[in-house]
């Protein structure tokens, strides 16, 4: 019942014709468009001068003092800067990779089966490196922890760097 009433009302309203504008409406719109399309945003110079002269509200005289008083109590937030610069970061990563490469290249290659996969070869080489370090008294676990810490620090550095770049 309610739905029918709603439908009837809708039909009744749709029967009404929209209000017609004045006969010269189109001509006026076209005139406005033709006069203003050439300029990006039209400026009426006398109007602008009038607005500039009287359009700015002024604040109480002690506004500056109030703000400065509050500011003096606030510590200025220092922008967090990475401890090492971007260039130094790249240099550290490059040196790390270079030393790692040297370790892998100059470690003795003994009885590695020719059928072994690359992954197996890499882990084998890594264990050889850790074995060599163990000779000097450093257990392999320490080396792994150091490498992982290095990776995490590197990631932290670059994530912070890119975050700052995005903010800027």
């Amino acid at each position: 019942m309610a739905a029918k009433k709603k439908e009837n009302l809708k039909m009744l309203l749709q029967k009404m014709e929209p209000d017609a504008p004045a006969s010269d409406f189109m001509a006026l719109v076209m005139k406005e468009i033709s006069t203003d399309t050439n300029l990006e945003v039209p400026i009426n110079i006398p109007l602008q001068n009038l607005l500039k002269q009287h359009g700015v509200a002024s604040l109480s005289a002690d506004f500056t003092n109030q703000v400065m008083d509050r500011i003096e109590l606030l510590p200025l937030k220092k922008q967090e800067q990475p401890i090492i610069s971007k260039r130094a970061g790249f240099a550290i990563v490059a040196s790390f990779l270079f030393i790692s490469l040297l370790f892998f290249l100059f470690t003795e290659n003994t009885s590695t089966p020719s059928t072994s996969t690359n992954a197996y070869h890499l882990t084998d080489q890594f264990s050889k490196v850790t074995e060599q370090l163990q000779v000097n008294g450093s257990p392999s676990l320490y080396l792994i922890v150091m490498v992982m810490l290095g990776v995490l620090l590197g990631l932290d550095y670059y994530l912070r760097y890119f975050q700052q770049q995005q903010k800027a």
Partner: protein
Amino acid sequence: MDHTEDQIYVDRVKNGDAASYSFLLNKYKNMAYTIALKITGNAEEAEDAAQEGFIKAYQAIHSFKGNSKFSTWLYTIVYRTAILMIKDKRIKTSSIDDENHQHDATDGNVPQLDQIQSDEQAKYVKLAIEKLPKTEALLVTLYYINESTIKEVCEITGLSIPNVKIQLFRARKRLERELKFLL
């Protein structure tokens, strides 16, 4: 020139010279307040918003990279602070349109230009701007009074370029009509 001068003071503040901020504060306080006033429609709230805006800008000054004008960056903060203030405090501002009949300067007798003193001119200009919808009044303030570019206006308000242009066009036509006797 202005841009460079601002940057000098911004750098000083960044280096820990808080007193240099008073230069920027004095230079932009009235426009910041005017922008906040257009949004809040209330003098007291506008002053609070302007004050908060300046403090936020000071605290975040290290993030200002100088890619845009300092004023544009500052006004964006003031604009957002005022918007947030309205939302937070649920300020009920009276519709400008409701007051039109009370303040319509062009209704009835039109004053003669030579009779109108400067303070009276200011009153009519203020009323004409107040009659505009809030966004249009803000855009007029930024574009015509502060002489910001369309791009800067869009940056501050977050509105699209066509939207800004349409609203400015409408506002200009209305102001021309309202202030015809002063132009």
